[in-house]
């Protein structure tokens, strides 16, 4: 599944990041395969998304989140 489908308060592990679509800056802020991600809060219409990636708190838009693949811990 993609990061855009994550529910508020849920945890997951990033499995793949489409390097063509994702800006380098996001990778440098810790958005790399293997790192954990938690959805802390969403704005109305669940966009943008407030994430905790490996201890770094940041917000990205949904259009970016669909290019990040994740695996939830319970799945």
């Amino acid at each position, binding site marked *: 599944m993609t990061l855009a489908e994550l529910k508020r308060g849920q945890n997951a592990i990033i499995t793949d990041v489409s390097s063509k679509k994702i800006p380098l*800056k996001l*990778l*440098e802020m810790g958005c790399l395969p293997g790192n954990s991600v938690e959805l802390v809060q969403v704005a109305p219409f669940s966009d*943008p998304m407030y994430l905790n990636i490996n*201890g770094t708190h*940041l917000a990205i838009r949904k259009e970016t989140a669909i290019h990040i693949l994740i695996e939830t811990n319970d799945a």
Partner: protein
Amino acid sequence: MPKQINVALIGNPNTGKTSVFNALTGLNQKVGNYPGITVEKKEGVCKLPRGVKAHIIDLPGTYSLNASSLDESVVIELLLNKNDKDYPDVAVVITDVENLKRNLLIYTQIKDLEIPTILVINMSDRMAYKGISLDIEKLEAHLDTKIALISTRKKQGVDNLKDLISNYQNLSIEPCLSTQDIDIDYFKGLKKAFPNQSLYKLWLVITQDVNFGKISRNTIKDTSSFKTKKDSDLKRLQQKETIKRYQFINNVLKEGQTIDLKTAKDLRIKLDRILTHKVWGYLIFGIILLTIFQAIYDWSSVPMDFIDNAFASLSDWTKNTLPAGAFTNLLAEGIISGLGGIVIFIPQIAFLFLFIAVLEESGYMSRVVFLMDRIMRRFGLSGKSVVPLISGTACAIPAIMATRNIESWKERLITILVTPFTTCSARLPVYLIIISLVIPEGRFFGLSYQALTLMLLYLIGFGAAVGSAWILNKILKIKSRKFFVVEMPNYKLPLFKNVALTVLEKTKSFIFGAGKIILAISIVLWFLASYGPGTEFNNAEEIVTEQYASNNLSQIELEQKNSLS
């Protein structure tokens, strides 16, 4: 040894870089501009032990040397240009103890440029609170540098940092990572083509889209012994490089850092549950905005009235004391009232920058960006456009400068173009005069018509800004990367020194920037008022009345004529 050491402060945003800069330089700082671009350049002087002086430059906050905005390019351009007069003898990389892992990424990059680098771990007062303990000796050994553990809030460790700066020549300049490991074949070819250059520097020149002065990208492309790569391949290599750097950092931190999550506390989650809430978040933001407007237009009227009266009496005193003549008039009505016209804005501007500085320092501004992004996007703006639109109510110039962290060029351009529509404080006196002339006194549900009109003017200004943004978004055909990422920093109690210096500096730049023009114009106005149509125009009614009286018109007819005119 040079008489003056050039020091560059580098670091991620929200690491307290400015606090370190303020702690080192105090009031010995000046803010200018990088030539040709609207990026602030902060420089200062710091006295080191043994009479050495350090020239300190506070570079814009950046997450890495891979630039994605103008202010980040400034950092790379300086670090790659040894001939720049500001080229650092020593780089000081500032990190936040809570985000050490991410903050160290840029440290490894600077180190690989073979510049002597000191590592500052800031906010050490938060370590106990977050359950973090550090083994400084091990970290120094693995990172191959000297570390200054400091807390600008508690004023600890700054002297140690000054000592390290003055002894910068003892620092190692060995790189952290071997650039060649990213892709052995590719970098071997590069090394063969340019044997005298540092590999990492070459790599930056290839990947970064900035102006490098003498080394141009073409020389690299033209060399036949070396094959260039496609952009997508380069990006893949950059990703590989980032992963390699994080592997290195993880290994270092495994040795030198322990975090006890049991003792760690987190206020952020509780605050964010309310401050970024779908309902409460917007409500609180609305209340904060109302408070700001209340402060600017109500609370600041007390000092403004005082300033107004003071300058009026000074002008009267000058007129009465000095011998009458053109020069006294110029002084009393041109210069003094012109100065008064500048000084009177100080309370409003100071109030506004006070609020903006507190909101930014505390970390709340990022939450506003988060809350507003979706709404602003409909008009072709970004959540980050909110900050310029708010500070535009004080003055459009710093507001436009504040747009520089908007990543998408199109959103940034639209924000710059529409920000001047917001009602800035210099327009306020004009509005007030027009309102008091045109709008009758009276109340509507306890609110005065005049106050409502003023509010309406503000709303029209904001509406014009957003409306024209919407139109521009439809018209402008700029293809730009659509991309938005904003860090949500920890909430912090703003440091008094940082807030005070921001307010002081912004107010000063208003007085000396806009003030010059206001003063010049008020002298021109004085000239026109004194030597223009002048008295005859002012006393038009009396003159006309006299003329009519001499024509033997009756009093009643006179009044009729007057009321018609």
